């Protein structure tokens, strides 16, 4: 258990007297001396210093400790003055005094000694702060604090918990606290009755406690723990299945996004666009560019880059169509080669113009982390957004193809170009629009991918083959096919991965597709009638 | 029938006792025999309970409005399309439904497409060479050498189809009519028992037509010929037996006069033409 007894006793003091002490403030010499101790002692000793600081009840303690935890607490070599680092990028850092809080402007890195912190200290600090938070009026912070306590309770705290639970109003906080206490009781005291409390819990610390208990030499306790674990395992099984399914869907939705644009350019227009991957890449870079333009507002930038990414990619696509593809009408294989050349050029362009290095695309807060369905099953948010996004995009395309004039004309042109022409449809215009649409969708895929994987020059390459597989597997010229193919391939892959391993799973999927194409050359949903011939 | 039945059936002729025969068995008359053939594409019945019999050495014309299923019928006979129901027999022992295009072709059914398809990259001569009846498996083809007799035979046909002086030009440069002829020539090289000729005179001049007519009539007797044609004049000029297809099944059958006086037929055609 992380927290030493001495610490917790100190904590109890400040816990119970917290409101009273909130205004207290030690004089600067003492503060200076505390911080010096923090700066100069070894990691082992730092723990006690931290406790002393926490115990000092100084209102700045929290600021110091947080800065310390974030690696922002430092001492200026020349003056020996303690500072809090505000920005730590580049060679000169922006700092303010730790004691007075006044800004000291920029100081050269050479002159700053950050006070080192490490993981164990950091987690220690967390629990300290969380214990403090148990008293906070804000329910959420109480909840997080309570949850953080599980597995971190020690004797001193344990004595206090019952009262806290008693006092607690919010049910879920109370539950968390009760579990925290139970875990302690099982672990430290081998208390069998407490096992019952945990038997339903899906929390990993609770499970850990039970597993340890199951190993204990007290047979009765072990038996009880095992029983509890079994019931937990039952719940877990279901959750894991759900999880795998979710993984499959999210991977699938990525594939769908990557492939759907291709389904239009390849499936509907019959154009093999090997530069499709690079159009995706452009979309991703647009997101990065947007975030550069709007520093500090990654979320807004992301939303804006949805239309932006679409436009950029669409324009690029149209440019490709005008300059290259239109000259190769009816020569799919040549188109394949030419567009492959385009893809090489685009990649190298990004390398030389922007950088060969990956670019950082920030995930906005509302997209990071995960929604907790229950303690064992939590769905990652960014993936969830991607799934939703994929479906929206798909629905949008369906609408365009089914309900709009463009869609009608597109279908007309693909069915019979000459006839469509004679009915006054401008085939060239349709080509441009269709290809623009397909490329634009690729751009959208890029925006989504920027939240999941690298934004770098090779981004496109990693998806092009998969995309083609999905389209071919789903049946060329059939959007539903693409959707189904993408989702099913994703799921298959995720089902295989646990026992086959990532590499083998991918290989197996590829081989499966190759064989499938042999059986059904036209994919899951083949185009019917004369249009499909030749 | 089961072995036992075979043994007890005194009329049964065991394979190994049967007399050696030409691959196509026409002792019982018809060389081509379609029975209750139906096929449909996404619900649309292209062929509907079609029954058709072609006798050995017969020259048969098949007419019918667009979409009557003429081409589909040929696809079925040549193995390109498989019918949903019905049976197709070549002679009395070859079930065509169990064979693929090459087998059927080697068995002796030649086909000329509606839209003339020749190998444009190859010379006229080479086109005929490829068509020539020969062992068409891989290694024989690889090691094949041009014997004098083959050359003579090809030149014969070149003479016949009047492309002698274009002998060594790529077929791509030929006119539409010439391509038609070349394709007919390729049919001849195949020495088929049965020729399926789809709109042979489309895009031909008057005298080209006449020559085609002569050619086809001259072929009849030695080989059986089935001609699908729109051009009534042409049909009248060659036809003895005419079959009228309508909506995938036989509407009328008989001599040209019988057929053209058939009220049904008139209705259909007037419905078409008027």
């Amino acid at each position, binding site marked *: 258990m992380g927290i030493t007894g001495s610490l917790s006793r100190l904590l109890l003091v400040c816990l119970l007297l917290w409101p009273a002490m909130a205004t207290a403030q030690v004089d600067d010499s003492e503060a200076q001396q505390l911080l010096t101790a923090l700066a100069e002692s070894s990691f082992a000793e730092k723990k006690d210093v931290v406790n002393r600081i926490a115990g000092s009840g100084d209102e700045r303690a929290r600021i110091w400790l947080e800065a310390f935890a974030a690696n922002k607490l430092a001492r200026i070599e020349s003056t020996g003055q303690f500072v809090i680092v505000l920005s730590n990028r580049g060679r000169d850092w922006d700092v303010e005094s730790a004691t007075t809080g006044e800004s000291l402007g920029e100081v050269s890195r050479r002159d700053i000694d950050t006070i080192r912190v490490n993981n164990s200290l950091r987690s220690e600090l967390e629990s300290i702060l969380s214990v403090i938070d148990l008293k906070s009026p804000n329910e959420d912070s109480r909840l997080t604090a309570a949850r953080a306590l599980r597995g971190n309770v020690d004797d001193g705290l344990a004595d206090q918990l019952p009262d806290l639970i008693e006092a607690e109003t919010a049910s879920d906080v109370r539950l968390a606290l009760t579990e925290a206490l139970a875990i302690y009781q099982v672990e430290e005291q081998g208390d069998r009755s407490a096992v019952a409390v945990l038997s339903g819990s899906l929390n990993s610390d609770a499970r850990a406690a039970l597993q340890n208990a199951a190993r204990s030499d007290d047979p009765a306790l072990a038996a009880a723990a095992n029983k509890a674990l079994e019931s937990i395992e039952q719940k877990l099984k279901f959750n894991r299945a759900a999880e795998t399914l979710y993984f499959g869907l999210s991977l699938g939705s990525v594939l769908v996004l990557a492939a759907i644009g291709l389904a239009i350019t390849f499936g509907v227009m019959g154009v093999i666009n090997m530069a499709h991957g690079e159009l995706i890449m452009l979309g991703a870079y647009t997101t990065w560019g947007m975030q550069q333009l709007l520093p500090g507002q990654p979320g807004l930038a992301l939303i804006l880059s949805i239309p932006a990414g679409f436009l950029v990619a669409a324009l690029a696509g149209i440019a490709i169509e005008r300059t290259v593809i239109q000259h190769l009408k009816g020569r799919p294989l040549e188109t394949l080669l030419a567009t492959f*050349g385009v893809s090489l050029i685009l990649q190298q362009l990004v390398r030389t113009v922007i950088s060969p290095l990956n670019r950082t695309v920030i995930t906005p807060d509302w997209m990071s982390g995960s929604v907790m369905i229950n303690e064992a099953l939590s769905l990652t948010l960014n993936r969830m957004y991607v799934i939703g996004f994929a479906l929206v995009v798909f629905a949008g395309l369906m609408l365009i193809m089914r309900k709009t004039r463009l869609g009608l004309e597109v279908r007309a042109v693909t069915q019979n170009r000459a006839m469509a022409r004679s009915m006054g449809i401008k085939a060239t215009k349709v080509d441009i629009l269709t290809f623009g649409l397909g490329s634009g969708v690729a751009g959208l895929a890029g925006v989504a991918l920027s939240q999941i994987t690298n934004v770098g020059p090779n981004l496109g390459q990693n998806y092009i083959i998969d995309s083609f597989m999905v389209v071919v597997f789903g049946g060329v010229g059939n959007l539903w096919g693409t959707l189904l193919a993408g989702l099913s391939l994703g799921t298959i892959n995720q089902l295989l991965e646990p026992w086959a391993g990532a590499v083998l799973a991918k290989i197996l999927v590829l081989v499966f597709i190759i064989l499938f194409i042999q059986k059904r050359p036209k994919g899951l949903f083949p185009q019917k009638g004369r249009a499909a011939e030749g | 029938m089961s072995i036992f039945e075979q043994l007890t059936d005194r009329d049964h002729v065991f394979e190994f006792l049967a007399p050696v025969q030409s691959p196509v068995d026409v002792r019982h008359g018809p060389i081509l025999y379609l029975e209750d053939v139906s096929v449909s594409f996404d619900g649309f019945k292209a062929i509907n309970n079609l029954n058709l019999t072609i006798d050995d050495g017969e020259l048969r014309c098949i007419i019918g409005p667009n979409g009557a299923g003429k081409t589909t019928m040929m696809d079925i006979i040549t193995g390109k399309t498989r019918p949903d129901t019905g049976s197709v027999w070549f002679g009395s022992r070859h079930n065509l439904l169990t064979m693929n295009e090459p087998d059927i072709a080697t068995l002796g059914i030649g086909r000329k497409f509606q839209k003339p398809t020749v190998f444009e990259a190859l010379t006229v001569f080479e086109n005929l060479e490829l068509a020539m009846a020969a062992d068409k498996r891989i290694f024989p*083809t690889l090691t094949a050498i041009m014997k004098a007799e083959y050359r003579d035979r090809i030149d014969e046909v070149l003479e016949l189809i009047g492309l002698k002086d274009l002998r060594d030009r790529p077929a791509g440069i030929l006119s539409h009519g010439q391509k038609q002829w070349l394709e007919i020539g390729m049919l001849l090289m195949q020495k088929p028992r049965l020729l399926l000729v789809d709109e042979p005179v489309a895009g031909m001049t008057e005298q080209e037509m006449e020559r085609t007519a002569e050619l086809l009539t001259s072929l009849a007797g030695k080989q059986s010929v089935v001609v699908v044609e729109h051009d009534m004049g042409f049909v009248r000029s060659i036809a003895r037996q005419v079959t009228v297809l309508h909506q995938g099944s036989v509407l009328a059958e008989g001599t040209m006069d019988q057929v053209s006086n058939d009220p049904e037929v008139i209705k259909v055609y007037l419905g078409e033409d008027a």
Partner: protein
Amino acid sequence: MWLTRPLQERSTQVFLGVLFAALVVVSALHLFMPEDSALYVSSYTVTLLGKYLCYALLAVAVDLVWGYLGILSLGHGAFFALGGYAMGMYLMRQIGDRGVYGHPTLPDFMVFLNWQELPWYWHGFDMAWFAFIMVLLAPGLLALVFGFLAFRSRVTGVYLSIITQALTFALMLAFFRNEMGFGGNNGLTDFKDILGFDLRTDATRLGLFIATGIALAIGYVICRGIVTSKLGRVSVACRDAEARTRFLGYRVERVQLFVFVVSAMLAGVAGALYVPQVGIINPSEFSPLFSIEIVVWVALGGRATLYGAVIGAILVNYAKTVFTGIMPDAWLFALGGLFVLVTVFLPKGIAGLLQKRKKAETTEPTPAQEATA
């Protein structure tokens, strides 16, 4: 006889003449010129040329299927690499106990990943004849199985191209796996000698260079023999009007299969000669990029003319050597531009330009037919 027929052709005679002349000249300059003379050909250059010749043979193999059969294989790198691995395994076994661990049978990478004994598929590769048969057999079999499945179900055109790409991609992933026992990403390297000749001597290098030249000559004659035979004309027929060919009684899928397998074996040989000269074989040879690059060599040189493929391969790779020396960043621009320009403005490649002067050769596909291919 189909193999001797090409030898009467003028184009083939010219080609062989040029090739052998080049071999002789290079060897002579390498052997008899003093090191410091401007005409001296260093062993570095000899190996470089040897590599180009390997690529040339590979390109010829691709042209055979693409140019004459209309099958655009984006996976020929796979056959090349398989041949290379077969040779690589032989060379590994030749090291014997001279590896850093001095293990009598196991290659080094197996020793330090503590494999206990040699995997079954490594047996026999210590015998040259076996290895050399595998050089043909490994790619041949893959092509046979893959082609059989694909052609039987009439997968052609773009679909075929895409799944050939998938094929080589899958193989790349597979060979990256260390469990496969082919050295994973590091591949096979640090070869000592071949057929008893020390790979580090200039003589051996020259020998390999000449061997490659001869292999190219033979390969060229074989391909030429096929395309000038009736079978060659049949394949062109399959390329331009598959259905028609069927109705003439040819089994299109078998023609395709045969030519495809021959081509794969040639690619394998090219790979086998490539490995001892560059001194390493690793999964990156399976990368789809490489396979597509091969196709562009052919496209640049001019399809359905074999010699065009040779020209293309040598030109592009020479350009690559120069570019990566002078302006590395520009290389991909150049390559990419090449793809676009050739396909858009030079559909018949360099050979096409040459033929503008002579009368047009007849086996050139026209764009219209390409659509059906």
